[in-house]
């Protein structure tokens, strides 16, 4: 399955990866050969086979909608983990 450089650039943007030209070249080759290998799955007849999304069989594991509050020390550490913050808020570049 040969990918074009344009397709690889598009995927990289979707994935928010800013790749250099040499990387685009390298990944185009590697991804193409990996996807080639995966093509063999097309030969398998999966008519009527249910997809497996998870193996536990659990469904709708719920908890009460109650606030389990965080202690101040942990809260401070969490905010301080952010590269940029102001008071109790994580700061980012403008979204719009």
């Amino acid at each position, binding site marked *: 399955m040969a990918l074009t450089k344009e397709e690889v650039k598009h995927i990289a943007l979707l994935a928010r990866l800013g790749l250099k030209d040499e990387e685009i070249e390298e990944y185009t080759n*590697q*991804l193409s050969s990996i*996807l080639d290998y995966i093509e063999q799955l097309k030969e398998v007849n999966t008519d009527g086979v249910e997809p497996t999304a998870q193996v536990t069989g659990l469904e709708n594991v719920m908890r009460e909608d109650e606030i389990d509050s965080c202690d101040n020390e942990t809260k401070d550490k969490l905010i301080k983990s952010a590269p940029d913050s102001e008071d109790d808020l994580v700061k*980012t570049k403008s979204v719009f």
Partner: protein
Amino acid sequence: MNLNELTIKKANEGLQKKDFSSVELTKACLDKIKKMDDKIKAFITVTEDVALKQAEAADKAGDFSDPLTGIPHAPKDVFCTKDVRSTGASKILDNYVPPFDATSIEKLNQVNGVMVGKVNCDEFAQGGSGENSGYFNTHNPWDLERVPGGSCSGSAAAVASDMCIYSLGTDTGGSIRQPAGFCGITGLKVTYGRVSRYGVMAMASSLDTIGHLAKNVEDAAIVLKHIAGKDKKDSTTPDKPVDDYEKEILKDIKGLKVGLPKEYFIEGMDKEVKETVNAAVKKLEKMGAEIVDISLPYTDKAIAAYYIICPSEVSSNMARYDGIRYGVSEEADNLLDTYLKTRSNNFGAEVKRRIMIGTYALSAGYYDAYYKKAMKIRTLVRNDFDKAFENVDVIVTPTSPTPAFKIGENSSDPLKMYLADVFTVPASLAGICGLNVPAGFVDGLPVGLQILGKRFDESTILKVGYNYEQATEWHKKKPEID
């Protein structure tokens, strides 16, 4: 024997009899790290102060009735450890200090365990050799020019060279079993959902399992008893009882049915590895097991399915590393460039590769052809095992087609690297449990035997492993590192 060379069981006996203290035991491990780790490079962070504090607390409390009290361990760096740097072996978390402990770590802390450091691995657990760490390569203690295996490269190397007594790790496609095999130690991949994943950096959320590497099966049983169980913070942990694994392993294996899948003994695999595993199987037969030939027909499709499912889930899980809430953040003029620069400058090549495969496979127009198709193949692989387990109790295979390869041998060919996981991946897709025990040597390099069991039947695979181990000496052999 130096204290750091003891097993959990033997160390606990010594601590209870007051032959030595936890501080002495811990210092022995720390000394070994100082002496050896320049060559092996298993550790990303050594936590000497934390370890000695924990050891002192264990000694002060003076109660060693719990076998893990005061015992030095070193978890894989994808485990969040409170106030101790946790990098996931990635540059993107180079400066990350979690404000909380993973549940499995908390359980060890509750019994006064001693953490001597955080060990190296493939970046975010993505790899099969240890060569994808964002920091440095770890070396196999049996041959420093060879890989220890991956992704639990540091865990396997540290346990095999007695720098710690055991190590918590993760196994998503073979990451505990394969390095345990390459380094001649015991490695346990639990059933999906047996151990809480809370606080462990996620790789592929429908496949990730939390397990451990230890010096023998008895030790593995002890650790499992501590970390297994339902956790309300991980809603994929079913409410299944935790067996008394230490007792279960002592039972014999007379009449136990052992399945040998023909698809795992293929042409082209290392002849001596095949012979080593066959000899192990003969040993099991001598101990009363009944060997049954079985077939797992979708084995050869499993790797292809895995290398769609895994990268797809990886691409989703890696999205959180965006330079906003934690970790490294690159300077940029706008938000998009923050993302583009932070992620491409600080993720390694393998992580980027998997993110790209996953993004492609999940993108509009391709989801059905790739991810959904792979999920259906996953059902077929799972059915193979379920059907086989109607007739056998465990399935036994080689852990890897070859012993440890040289550093650099496979790293330029990602596909070749993926194919080395061929024996461990199918069990991961099925969510079943698997144990690696040392089964011999080929040219001085360890060869592992993989014992696969039904979901939540860790007792049986541990029992088989223990019986085999007690009838052999492989697990007692240590590498001679100069």
